[in-house]
């Protein structure tokens, strides 16, 4: 175990709040605005961490444990994700399923806390969140299975660094389909625009934001931080797929991969600027379409 394996999660933990900043900056440029500072989320997190938390009399211990538990699940998931050819700190066969499970666990805690408040808006938000997640999960698992089948390894740390340009040349259609499906999953899981609008301020239209209305102070900081880290993890998954270059030295590879992650952020920003939010029935079609693409990729590679 070298220094590099410790640097990969550290880089993720430190740079994750910058990714939403990059997306916001791209959106601002598209709209002709100057936009908020790139480091806005760091300022927000610092401000929130210094505040005290306010709890309603009607909530139970679930409400105040859930944000830290969710954050812990995402932090654990970040230990599984390799970046730029460096294997992750934690690697075991089948950790692709553990990764999906940890993301699901974090969502479970958020939903539970939202239901604990008894607010009707939060109940609606959690219902929609689970609806979307239930449709996005097959797409995530099927596309990960397709890529695992391509490399014939079952650990993220063995699959993603092993991926090369040669694999892309060999089976372009399957990998392209899996990548497209993963991109749709990224948009859906991180409440990005065609599925959810992260900047909406109307409770009726919120999905993810509606669930965290009652959280404040350090709890909200944990929630915002784990959301950005989740975006970073999905982004680094996509970056490893899209930029499978091996320059030779691990530091150079890592730097290329980090640029790749921010590149994915730029793509997300462009997509968000060009698309409007979809209606609920269309979201259903989009996500089932993503699952279909992932399944076709798997069928293509199974032969």
């Amino acid at each position: 175990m070298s220094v590099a394996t410790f640097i990969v999660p550290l880089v993720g933990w430190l740079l994750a709040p910058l990714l939403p900043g990059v997306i916001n900056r791209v959106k601002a440029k598209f709209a002709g605005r100057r936009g908020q500072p790139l480091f806005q989320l760091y300022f927000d997190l610092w401000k929130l961490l210094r505040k005290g938390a306010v709890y309603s009399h009607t909530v139970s211990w679930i409400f105040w444990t859930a944000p830290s538990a969710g954050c812990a699940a995402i932090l654990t998931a970040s230990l599984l994700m390799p970046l730029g050819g460096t294997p992750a700190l934690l690697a075991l066969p089948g950790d692709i399923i553990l990764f999906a499970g940890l993301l699901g666990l974090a969502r479970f805690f958020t939903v539970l806390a939202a239901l604990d408040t008894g607010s009707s808006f939060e109940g609606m938000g959690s219902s929609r969140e689970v609806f979307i997640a239930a449709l996005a999960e097959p797409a995530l698992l099927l596309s990960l299975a397709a890529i695992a089948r391509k490399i014939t390894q079952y650990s993220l740390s063995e699959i993603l660094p092993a991926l090369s340009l040669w694999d892309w040349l060999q089976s372009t259609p399957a990998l392209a389909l899996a990548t497209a499906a993963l991109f749709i999953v990224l948009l859906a899981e991180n409440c990005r625009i065609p599925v959810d609008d992260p900047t909406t301020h109307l409770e009726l239209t919120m999905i993810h934001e509606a669930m965290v209305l009652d959280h404040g102070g350090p709890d909200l900081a944990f929630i915002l931080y784990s959301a950005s880290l989740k975006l970073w993890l999905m982004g680094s998954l996509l970056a490893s797929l899209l930029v499978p270059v091996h320059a030779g030295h691990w530091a150079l590879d890592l730097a290329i991969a980090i640029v790749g992650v921010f590149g994915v952020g730029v793509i997300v920003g462009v997509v968000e600027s060009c698309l409007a939010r979809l209606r609920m029935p269309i979201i259903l079609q989009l996500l089932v379409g993503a699952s279909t693409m992932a399944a076709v990729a798997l069928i293509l590679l199974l032969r």
Partner: protein
Amino acid sequence: MIDLLLILVVLTNLKLLGASRLGASIRTVAAQGVVLGLLPLVTHPHPLSIRILELAAGSVIIKGFLIPGLLFRAVREVDVSREIEPLVGYITSLLFGLAALGLSVWFGAKLPLPMGALSSWLVPVSFFCIISGFFLIVARKRAVTQVLGFLVLENGIYTFGVGAMQEVSPLVEAGVLLDVLVAVFIMGIIIFHISREFEHIETDRLSTLKD
């Protein structure tokens, strides 16, 4: 290259199963026709001959432009709404398409061609086209979408022909295309008459016309 074209055909079929707009469906079938028209260019065994070029050009023009053009004209003239109104929902259709794809891949592995196919995808893709063509004929209400299903079915037979013979026999191909063309014409005339008499072109409502 062959595999890429065939996978494009699979994707257009899935798009067709999930599409909710008539115009989008017709354009998808047109795209599929163009892709299939290009197929003989990459599957031919010897250097490019004039005949193969003619065949490809003919297929592209008829499948990609002529028939879709006729369908667009029919849709415009009878002024139907742009929704497809399926009997089986889009999501269910997509999932059915996936199952059909799996089935045809499995089936294709069981049925090797005696002379060996150019690509292991030819047989599964042609089966998939035939199954989804039948499904589109059964599961959609509108006469126009049923014509589309018929076209997809014909595309499946064409794909199999390209794979089995290494080169398409023009006579067979011309016969099949002529059949389809006649079918499109007859459908166009029928649709026109139905719409003039009854102000809708839903075929399942015709069965309620009993005395």
